[in-house]
């Protein structure tokens, strides 16, 4: 990747898959007002027309050829979203951001490997997207809570990311890139992959990692963090969640004794990560780390 910030920046050229839908058109408008370079949209059957001044194509293949888009964002409904991810991967897009919630897990297993084979980056599914404040926003985030700066944020939760970024911004601390990797069981990016990017990113000094119950991704990240030079501040949601109950996100479930918040917090602490008990405390810990 030649991008300066991680994953996306002001040169990112975006194609919106499902641009004529309610969600697609609404968020296209919002991204445009933030300054995101949206160069094309797709909507099968509506090729040749335009929306918000953006040309619409029937296929991603055509959209990429005509517009030179390198990144896609997907607003296609769950039953068709896997097909949209496969199509984007096939068209050699380097970044695919999938906002859609509710995609069948067996579909996710298939497109996960398709995207890997193509060497692309998949953000999501079931995620709020990605923002590099002041540069570009490929997602559905409330952009006013962010400010350009040097803290990288990676999270499995949307609203909680906004909350913690808001707490940071209020303390005068800006963000380099904020990325929601998604709340599903199978996500394109793992914490480790994003931490690796933040470790190399010159704009990032401190990383905030927001995890939640379910799976072992945080525990695996904790192992990786042992070899990182940059300080990590953690937060894990779901200490009071009962086992074997799905807490909103498809991936937020403690199953067969795996995935508890206690286990994740313990693993992170063992790797020297300070874990905030509340969103506000996370921001305060970051503030202390930034002063050093």
């Amino acid at each position, binding site marked *: 990747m030649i991008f300066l910030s991680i994953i996306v920046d002001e040169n990112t050229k975006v194609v919106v898959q499902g641009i004529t839908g309610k969600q697609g058109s609404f968020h296209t408008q919002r991204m445009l007002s933030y300054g995101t370079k949206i160069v094309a949209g797709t909507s099968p059957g509506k090729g040749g027309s335009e929306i918000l001044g953006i040309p619409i194509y029937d296929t991603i293949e055509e959209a990429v050829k005509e517009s030179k888009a390198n990144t896609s964002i997907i607003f296609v409904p769950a039953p068709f979203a896997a097909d949209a991810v496969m199509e984007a991967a096939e068209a050699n897009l380097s970044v695919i951001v999938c906002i859609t919630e509710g995609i069948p897990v067996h579909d996710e297993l298939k497109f996960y490997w398709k995207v890997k084979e193509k060497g692309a980056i998949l953000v999501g599914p079931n995620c709020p997207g990605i923002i590099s404040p002041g540069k570009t926003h490929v997602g559905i985030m409330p952009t006013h809570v962010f400010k350009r700066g040097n803290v990288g944020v990676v999270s499995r939760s949307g609203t909680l990311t906004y909350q913690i970024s808001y707490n940071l911004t209020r303390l005068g601390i800006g963000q380099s890139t904020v990325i929601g990797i998604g709340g599903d069981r199978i996500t394109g990016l793992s914490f480790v992959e994003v931490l690796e990017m933040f470790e190399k990113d010159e704009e990032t000094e401190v990383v905030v990692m927001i995890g939640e119950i379910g799976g072992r991704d945080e525990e695996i990240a904790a192992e990786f963090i042992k070899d990182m030079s940059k300080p990590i501040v953690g937060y894990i949601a779901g200490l009071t969640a009962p086992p074997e109950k799905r*807490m909103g996100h498809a991936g937020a479930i403690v199953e067969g004794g795996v995935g508890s918040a206690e286990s994740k917090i313990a693993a992170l602490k063992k790797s020297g990560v300070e874990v905030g008990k509340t969103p506000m405390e996370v921001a305060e810990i970051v503030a202390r780390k930034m002063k050093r």
Partner: protein
Amino acid sequence: MRLLEYQAKQIFKNYGIPIPKGEVAKSIEEVEKIAEKFNGKVVLKAQVLVGGRGKSGGVRKATSVNEAKKIATELFGYNIKGHIVKKLLVEEMLEIKSEFYAGFTIDRSSKSIVAILSTMGGMDVEEVAAKYPQKIAKQKIDPRWGLWDYNLRNLLKNSSSPKELWSDLSDILRKLYNIMISYEAELVEINPLALTPQGLVAADARLNIDDNAIFRKKELFEMREITEESEIEKEAIKFGLNYVQLKGNVGIIANGAGMAMATMDLIKIMGGEPANFLDVGGGASKEVVEKAIEIITKSGVKSIFINIFGGITRCDEVAKGIVDALNRQKIGIPIIVRLSGTNEEEGKNILKKLKNIIVVNEMEEGAKIAVDLAR
């Protein structure tokens, strides 16, 4: 969606996996008829969707028809961890020589399907994994290429299964895998897979189907038994709310799953106990907010903390929902509201005029007040 044992067994049977002879009974008369066919030597199994059913007394053996009837009398209406027994699966008693565990599940870390085989069946598989990890053989199945015979050979070899059973075990594993794929399951499991004089038999059956795939499995809707949820949870599902009942007395409404969990945790940190998880989702309408308040009030909480961080969700819309709830419902408990983000000022202005509403600026502050008022 989790199927009941008898439903899963029917599917296993359709795929050619041997299951014990038996039938489902809804009354003592039906139990009697089925037990007579087996000369009274039957196992009675409560059909409820809870783990540890055997330990809770939900699986019982009878040696005569009269004993089967007596057990049935006890089991019908029996409460197993909050689930009332309405159906019994009455099956022939198997002569079991040894027990295996066989299953497939999705491995989140390796993004693959994983096959599991163990010669220590009949026990809780997590317990076996913790105590005797060498007794559990696993094979990752690449979801792109599916199950190959070498995957099964590795599994059989590594599980130290007796060679004379390799062929039969492979056959059952392949059928289980076919069920995993065609039903888009998260988990398919036989525990125990019993070795009897007649061969291998699935003495139990578990099939959990991915909720996100149910739209493609219309025929399963009919099988769906919403016994897993409480009455309030059922009502919440009807309105598209993500709701999970907990044991405390501070009600919670938040937007976003992570935020709702963080709010629960915060209530605990402040010394209280959360009564529920409730995520109104992104861009919630005032009707949804009103309904959420109604559902939570019904569950008998002492205070409600509404914690909204408005992105797509508009704070003024949430405020309107709160006003409607107060106008139309009798709410005798304090409501603490934190509104941040999109249209925050408009939302706060709407709430200013209301009594019994405490508006706060930070979620930490709101949680503390909600806990204090629930004491």
